[in-house]
């Protein structure tokens, strides 16, 4: 089971068949990136390389901060100012996974990238975005295993 909010947004994307409509929706989402950008009290540049998403060509970074209710609040940065897709992915992950049960966050499949961006996305781009999902998933799994 994955977070309910994520299921809802995946439903939204599954109803979009027009590529332009999908792109416009994603650009709107990417516009909200400043709200999920890592604040200075969590991290400042130069960032810890352990936070870097390995396969992402847009230089994306992910942080997870533990909350009093044992959930995680996710923060992101995308150093490439033209990395709009990475920004949109970050916004979706924060809005749907922060504050959600860790078991559900840990269960997110990386294939959601294809549901969100469409199957025509290039392999390199898809892998970079899947890398962001993997890091979020990894943070949840780490807490669940007590590491």
């Amino acid at each position, binding site marked *: 089971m994955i977070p309910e909010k994520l299921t809802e947004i995946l439903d939204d994307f599954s109803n979009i068949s027009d590529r*332009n409509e999908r*792109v*416009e929706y*994603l*650009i709107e989402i*990417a516009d909200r990136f400043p709200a999920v950008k890592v604040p200075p009290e969590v991290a400042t540049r130069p960032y810890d390389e352990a936070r870097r998403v*390995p*396969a992402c*060509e*847009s230089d994306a970074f992910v942080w997870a901060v533990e909350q009093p209710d044992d959930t995680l609040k996710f923060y992101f940065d995308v150093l*490439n*100012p*033209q*990395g*709009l*897709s990475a920004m*949109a992915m970050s916004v979706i992950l924060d809005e749907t996974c922060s504050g959600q049960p860790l078991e559900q966050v840990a269960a997110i499949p*990386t294939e959601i990238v294809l549901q969100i*961006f469409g199957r*025509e*996305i*290039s*392999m*390199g*781009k898809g*892998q970079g975005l*899947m*890398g962001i999902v*993997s890091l979020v*998933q*990894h943070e949840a*799994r780490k807490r669940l295993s007590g590491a």
Partner: protein
Amino acid sequence: MSEITSRGYANPDVLVSTDWVAQHLNDPDVRIVESNEDPLLYPSGHIPGAVQVDWTTDLNDPLRRDYLDRAGFEALMSRIGVTNETTVVFYGDKNNWWATYAMWVFQLFGHDRVKIMDGGRLKWEQEDRPFTRDVPHYPPATYHAPERDDHAIRAFRDQVLKHIEGGRPLVDVRSPDEYTGKKLHMEGYPQEGALRGGHIPGAKNVPWARAVNTTDGTFKTADELRAIYEQEQGLKPDDDIIAYCRIGERSSHTWFVLKYLLGYPNVRNYDGSWTEWGNSVGVPIEK
């Protein structure tokens, strides 16, 4: 002498400045083409009058792993209003990485009226030049293309095997971690599309982005490029060189640098690259 000419390239005419593009926005003999790694960028704003050529949907065969054929190329050129006489100027994100890839595919059909806008999208943006979300529509053009000719600038797996048997040079333009195969072994991360990690034996590792200035995405001078590829890596201008990466996109950037900026006559791009080599049975791999 223009600033680009002063950099000492073998073919300086293949690069144009952002100023040049700004002066040719309404030139009917010029078509500005944006080609990006990020599919959201062009729709979010582009140079006025620029059309988009998308690598996935426009340049690839929809079924086979191959590029479009002659009919497909003619249809693409017609759609973007390009005739055989039109000068096509490519630009894009990531230091023109995808722009050089699109240019490479255009070269498979011999369209040699091609240029790259130095600095790409980044420099245009840094200079506060205009972007628009209006998508232009040009009257369909008539374009006559020859059959695609792969032999001069494209390399295939069996040719690469012979190439390494002959001890001829290869340039692996991926990151050092990809070159050593390290990324494939990171637990929990998506694979790089290959079952094995490492590099083609004998390949030199020169990450593609070393050819550009990170501040504004412009290409380094010919002397700076020679310092990397010749003095540091030992390539010679008359070498028979094959460049590769993961799927041939980043290596088209290095192909452009070696072939046009340094003027090496024999440079090919192995677009099968690591996703083919790292999945092939029995081919030699080095780590």
